[in-house]
């Protein structure tokens, strides 16, 4: 479980996050949604420590993270898997070297054991025959799946995904969503997904946090969205004609 308590963050006197309080539960997918520039990426980066919040605290399973020493932070980070928006794969390494990298650094596995784990993770994300290819030689969807494979190779307790579906076609996006759901259930991870893809939200979200102007404007479940009177949330979620019709149909 990740507890975010009263987090605020400013850049150049502009307050990007304002007293955010959220709890991300284990075995569930928490989705952070909001317009571009609403502060959701800053929230995610603050939670994982890439940004230092100006105030507030973050607890990973009751372990204080924000003010912890860098050595302790690195220990906690070894329990985190992260899927970046662009994949963030190491471009000079092959697909299997990318996945093996955390094993080389943090485990004492033998070469054969590492290879077995790499093969398992690649199989888990439905990638075959791409072990020796470089990231530039595979499609965007495959890069995302390799990124997920790398994120789960050390059996993480916490999984963070920053816009995992951006730039993907709807079918591949659904595959990625389902993969994230399966992994969350399988490993009981605390999964946090940053997105503005409403298909994704309707497909896999357990808890939804709507960030608006740096504030936690609304939170609830998938079904609650259809019955909410929150104006800003409705403007964001039901911006398209399709979703407006769905809302009417549901109501």
């Amino acid at each position, binding site marked *: 479980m990740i507890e975010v308590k009263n987090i605020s963050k400013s850049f150049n006197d502009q307050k990007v996050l304002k007293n955010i309080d959220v709890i991300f539960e284990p075995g569930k997918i928490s989705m952070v949604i909001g317009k571009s520039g609403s502060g959701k990426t800053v929230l995610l980066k603050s939670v994982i420590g*890439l940004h230092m919040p100006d105030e507030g605290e973050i607890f990973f399973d009751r372990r204080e993270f924000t003010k912890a020493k860098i050595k302790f932070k690195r*220990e906690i*980070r070894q329990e985190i898997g*992260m899927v*970046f928006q*662009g994949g*963030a794969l190491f471009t000079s390494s092959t697909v299997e070297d990318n996945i093996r990298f955390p094993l*080389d*650094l943090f485990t004492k596995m033998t070469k054969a054991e590492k290879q077995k784990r790499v093969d398992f993770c690649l199989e888990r994300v439905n990638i075959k025959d791409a072990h020796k290819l470089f990231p530039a030689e595979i499609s965007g969807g495959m890069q995302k799946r390799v990124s997920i494979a790398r994120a789960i190779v050390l059996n993480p307790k916490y999984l963070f995904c920053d816009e995992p579906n951006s730039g993907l076609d709807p079918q591949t996006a659904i595959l990625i969503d389902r993969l994230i759901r399966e992994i969350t259930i399988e490993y009981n991870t605390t999964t946090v997904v940053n997105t503005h893809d409403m298909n994704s939200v309707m497909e896999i979200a357990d808890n939804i946090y709507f960030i608006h102007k740096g504030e936690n404007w609304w939170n609830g479940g998938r079904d609650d969205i259809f019955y909410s009177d929150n104006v800003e949330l409705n403007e964001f979620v039901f911006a398209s004609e399709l979703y407006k019709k769905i809302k009417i149909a549901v109501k």
Partner: protein
Amino acid sequence: MKLFTVIGQYLVLMGNVFTKPVRRTIFFKRVVDEIEQIGVDSLWIVSIVSVFMGAVLTLQVAINFEAPYIPKYLIGLSARDTMILEFSSTIICLILAGKVGSNIASEIGTMRITEQIDALEIMGVNSASYLILPKIIAALVTFPLLNILSIILGILGGYFVAVLTDVVTVYDYLFGLNYVFVPFYVTYSLIKICFFSVIITSVSSFHGYFTYGGALEVGKSSTRAVVYSIILILLFNLILTQILLT
């Protein structure tokens, strides 16, 4: 004020760089890779520049030493001392600042803007140490060797001039090479190049590491890395010469 902020940022980064590596085997593998990229890949440029500069230097000195009362062997001596004292350390490092420095800044800068450095941090890796320390060690190992190679090839370039032209005889040139040789000059040259190797790799890494934005910013970081490396090399050249030779 900004200067102090930058110096502070640089010192904090270096504090993170000089820490114990997570895995020694991976660290040594990274050092070997960097030796290839930073050192071995620079062999051809250092060799070509040194041979030609040695040759041109000998020719120019010979042309300016036309007066009959100046002994011709001084041509060999000046070629030797210029290569050892200045060319093979300072000028070669200015060239390497352009080649290696821009390469390092753009490599690390690209890793920054494509979130590869963030990915390392999230995995619990000290990204500064993982990326930069092997580059500094590799430069410290290879640049002094390049320095020695440059001295030898520069002197050889002068020798070719002596053999192929009549501006100086081979005997005079070789006599000049052996005349009043000060071994400390080689030590001085090696000390300088060790300083310069740290300057080039650390300053370029610093500019790459703190790149924010897109491809344009990577280009700007790369240019800044070369410019600041060159300025610092020239500044430290003056300071080290004052300390070591006067």
